[in-house]
């Protein structure tokens, strides 16, 4: 087992302050402490070479977990063992073996080319010249940024910068890489390139832990999904199992020649009534079989077009987030 997290807790101390002027003045002298339980005993294990999606709504505790796992924060309680290290105790030895990409915190230097930042990382990790050049050339070729790494970072697009962030994180050949919203704000082409890169690195045995709000990242990359909410783990299994939580539901778009009757049968939930001839609905096939539904609609209104889709992962995640 490469990562073992046991009963991880984190409590932040904050101070309550009202918004009125009087309360602001009062807070200069007396402040009421508030204890925020960001993590309430999270446990999970991750094997070498896994690619795990770490999901949760804002404030759920996923960034706090990631920061503890990367040695940035001290936890309030619990045990963590990653490659035999306790991140906050063996920080220096441990972080030499991990990489991190924070979508909203750049490791590049704004006014100078990415290659200068790469050289700074070379010195930080004491990477031998030959290994450095070879790794950099491989990454540059894979991400197609050869012409860009010598331009000042400020002249690069967001997608180009993010590709260079990945090179920064991978130059020292880490065994585990933590990704915090790595595709935030990127266009589809840049997202696709970065996803291909992650999959390629994962094939080489690098473990990835990915937090994101972009569920298409999860669908394209993650073999396993951990969902946290209110500081607790609410789901930990494969993407397939996550999908099956909705049972045998399908999303159906139907268009008819004649006006549709009121579809009030059990197992049918109208999600969008576009017109008298067009409707989008959710069909629970455990209650109403698909062929029966098609026959019913065709008989009453004559089907012109019909599309059947899997339910979107967003629906499932939304349900998980709303669970108390």
């Amino acid at each position, binding site marked *: 087992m490469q990562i073992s997290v046991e009963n991880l807790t984190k409590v932040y101390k904050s101070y309550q302050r009202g918004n009125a002027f009087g309360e602001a003045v009062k807070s200069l002298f007396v402040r009421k402490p508030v204890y925020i339980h960001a993590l309430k005993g999270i446990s999970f294990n991750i094997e070498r070479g896994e690619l795990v999606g770490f999901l949760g709504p804002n404030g759920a505790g*996923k960034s706090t977990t990631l*920061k503890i796992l990367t040695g940035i*924060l001290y936890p309030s309680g619990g045990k963590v063992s990653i490659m035999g290290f306790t991140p906050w105790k063996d920080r220096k*030895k441990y972080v*030499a073996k991990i990489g991190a990409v924070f979508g909203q*915190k750049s490791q590049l230097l704004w*006014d100078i080319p990415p290659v200068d930042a790469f*050289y*700074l990382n070379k010195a930080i990790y004491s990477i031998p010249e030959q290994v450095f050049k070879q790794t950099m050339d491989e990454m540059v070729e894979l991400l197609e940024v050869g012409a860009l790494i010598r331009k000042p970072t400020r002249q690069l697009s967001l997608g180009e910068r993010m590709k260079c962030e990945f090179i920064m994180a991978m130059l020292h050949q880490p065994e585990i890489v933590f990704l915090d919203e790595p595709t935030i704000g990127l266009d589809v082409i840049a997202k696709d390139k970065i996803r291909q890169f992650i999959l390629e690195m994962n094939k080489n045995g690098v473990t990835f832990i990915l937090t994101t709000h972009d569920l298409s990242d999860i669908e394209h990359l993650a073999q396993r999904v951990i969902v946290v909410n209110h500081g607790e783990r609410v789901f930990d299994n494969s993407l397939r199992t996550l999908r099956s939580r909705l049972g045998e539901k399908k999303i159906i778009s139907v268009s008819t020649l004649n006006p549709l009757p009121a579809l009030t049968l059990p197992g049918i939930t109208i999600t969008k009534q576009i017109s008298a001839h067009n409707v989008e609905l959710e069909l629970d096939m455990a209650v109403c079989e698909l062929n029966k539904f098609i026959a019913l609609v065709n008989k009453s209104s004559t089907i012109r077009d019909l599309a059947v889709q899997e339910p979107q992962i967003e629906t499932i995640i939304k349900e998980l987030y709303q669970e108390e």
Partner: protein
Amino acid sequence: MMANLRLYLQGIKTALATRMAYRGDFIMSMLIMLLVELGAPFITFLIYENGASFPGWTMYEVLLIQGVFLLARGIAFPFYFGIVWNTINRVRDGTFDLLLIKPKSTLFMAIVTAFDAEDLGKFFGGIMLFGLALKRVPPPGLGEWLQFSAIFLVALVTLFGFALILAGLGIIWIGNFRVYDIFFTIINFGMYPTVIFSKAVQTIITMLIPIAIMGYIPAATLLGRPAAGTCWAVLASIAFLFMSLGFWRLMQKKYTSAGG
């Protein structure tokens, strides 16, 4: 050790490359810095030109104290004092995290990424003033030079201690810039002969918060008239360094990071 030195030099090269991206602004900033720093020596010159003086001290002796004071800051500010602003800015925008994920001491990483080329203006100003004043005072002997070098090193250590305390405060007391204003006002006590202050202030700036060691004490040693309480000031500076290191470590443990 060599790897760390290479990293530090790479940090300086990177910071210079960053600053050179705006060459005109860099040169102007350095010149302005130099002019601002020469303000106090200029006032000293005016005081003596108008017949007033610091009792028992000639103009060039006072300028030597101010030269040493400027030189100490001219070494500290570009090469390591930048950890104060580096830490404050990084804690505020959350990029302090990026220092913690590097396999080096966080303090060292804060220094490596904090080289402040603009403050080289202080360094060049300090060398100029020190050299100018030194030519007009009786030449010091080898013994004075050796003692001066040792005490000057302690002055740099004291400034490092202050940098640690201010940077540590920046971790938990985000955005409280008045503390830094107070610091910059207080350290100015170090660029005058202590005789101009009351006994109580002399004791405080020599033995309690060793500010006098940043200018007055090393300069007085070089002039062959060592200040009373020099040994105490050296001991206080070393104790101050250990206290500051402890404070920095404590504050680093209390780091809560910015929201994700």
